[in-house]
């Protein structure tokens, strides 16, 4: 029984990371039709910004405080980079979808290479406060405490995004835009500002996902963003593009499948099972995955 509890919580914890990475992608694609390959670069940027913060701040502050600040920095850096990328690279290519995708591809290659150039291709260890590195006893199972941090972060972001979407004007424009972007413009609403904000939000969530991914792996490395990005893509496809709740459910499912398969079968099978899950979902309900931009 305690095994199941451990697997479920760690699975959902993993899913929490995927949700953080995927939520921004889902919104960006749902609203703007841009398949953002640079999202992986946002994650790596957030991870490295957080790592630099932690190693740059004086030890006297204590690990927990430094981590908290690192989190704040990674979110801010992610948001800033997302905003800049949208305004400088994406906006000028408005309505040229393939070119927008290609630009994000080029950006992702260049950004990761730049990070590798400056800080090397090896992983850099990330300090973890003792209370986070230990385990917590829940229902007879010893669960790594950091999983709870991930789940808390994901719930917070989910709640915040939901509130944004349903209680603010910006959220209203986003929801309408996901359905029919052209009509929103035809009602006199400037979607460009909304696009920039959505990219910034996506970047912020990605930055957080990157740093927490580093917490999970106990290190930051240049290729971390890329591997998480693929899972984020899978989550977005399964969950439905532009649907926040769908993304949340899919993220939890993917995390659980991966964890369960890795445990009950062999390590590595979990990753393959996720692809299998994608294939199964596609074979059963392809219609739900079209989104507004098939």
């Amino acid at each position: 029984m305690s095994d199941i509890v451990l697997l479920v919580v760690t699975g959902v914890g993993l899913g929490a990371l995927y949700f953080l990475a995927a939520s921004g992608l889902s919104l960006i694609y749902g609203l703007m039709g841009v398949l953002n390959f640079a999202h992986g670069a946002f994650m790596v940027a957030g991870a490295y910004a957080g790592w630099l913060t932690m190693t740059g701040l004086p030890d006297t502050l204590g690990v927990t405080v430094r981590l908290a600040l690192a989190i704040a920095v990674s979110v801010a850096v992610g948001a800033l980079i997302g905003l800049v990328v949208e305004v400088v690279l994406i906006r000028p290519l408005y309505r040229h979808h393939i070119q927008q995708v290609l630009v994000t591809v080029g950006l992702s290659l260049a950004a990761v290479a730049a990070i590798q150039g400056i800080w090397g291709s090896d992983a850099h260890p990330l300090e973890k406060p003792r209370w986070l590195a230990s385990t917590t006893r829940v229902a007879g199972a010893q669960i790594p405490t950091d999983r709870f941090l991930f789940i808390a972060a994901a719930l917070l972001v989910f709640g915040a995004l939901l509130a944004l979407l349903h209680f603010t004007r910006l959220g209203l424009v986003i929801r309408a835009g996901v359905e029919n972007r052209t009509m929103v413009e035809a009602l006199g609403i400037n979607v460009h500002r909304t696009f920039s904000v959505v990219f910034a939000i996506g970047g912020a969530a990605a930055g957080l996902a990157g740093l927490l991914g580093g917490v999970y792996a106990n290190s930051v490395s240049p290729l971390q963003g890329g591997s998480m990005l693929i899972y984020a893509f899978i989550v977005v496809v399964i969950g439905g593009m532009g649907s926040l709740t769908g993304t949340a459910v899919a993220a939890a499912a993917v995390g659980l499948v991966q964890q369960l398969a890795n445990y009950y079968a062999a390590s590595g099978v979990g990753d393959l099972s996720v692809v299998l899950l994608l294939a199964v979902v596609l074979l059963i309900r392809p219609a739900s995955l079209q989104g507004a931009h098939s």
Partner: protein
Amino acid sequence: MSTMAATGPLTTSPTPILRVEDLHVRYGGSHILQGVSFDVPATGVTALLGRNGVGKTTTLKAVLGLAPRTGGVLLDGSDITRWSVTRTVREGVGYVPEDREVFGGLTVEENLRLVGGDVGADAAIVGELFPDLVNRREQRAGTLSGGQQQMVALARVLLRPNRLLLVDEPTKGLAPKLVTEVADVLGRVAQTAPILLVEQNLPVVRRIADTVVVLDAGQVVYRGAADDLMSDPDLTRELLGVSMRREARQ
């Protein structure tokens, strides 16, 4: 192709709210509008007529900027060809598209607030012209009937001050009773802002239109007073391929 040359004067005074000059639209290899020119007077309803596929919707889209265009478009004397769609709408051109295009996932209230800011169904005009919508404000727009959706599409453009309204086939697919309702609403709206109306339903045109512009093969083939055209069944049949004998009893 009709032998009728474009008859009827372009309005001389006062300034037409909209002047379209030699408008061309080429899209995907087809030359849809081939030099369309007409005026929309600053008051009343101008109906844009023509057979199916002749370019009526394309004309509205071109005026707004939703279709790639060359030529002149003047709003109250100002050249708007360089304006973005958003700017054109903000400057007072309201657009009610064919097929309504309300946001199905949003409630009626939200659909209205999108345009009206903080004011949705509470706006005076909504209560006045669309009382049914006030009752349905929390209902998802996707669950409304066609007629109700049409009301939403109309109501939302009225939440902004308009200098001109572009309305595309508002009675399409509606039951006769609803057709009357929509025509009534449009008639009342026309008292506050001029309307360029694309319509296939000729009784509606006869009821509320003041001027008509007829398109054929990408060009204007007739301009004049609505009454003149509507009272001439031979002419209507020639230009529109429809017999006016078929009058809907309302």
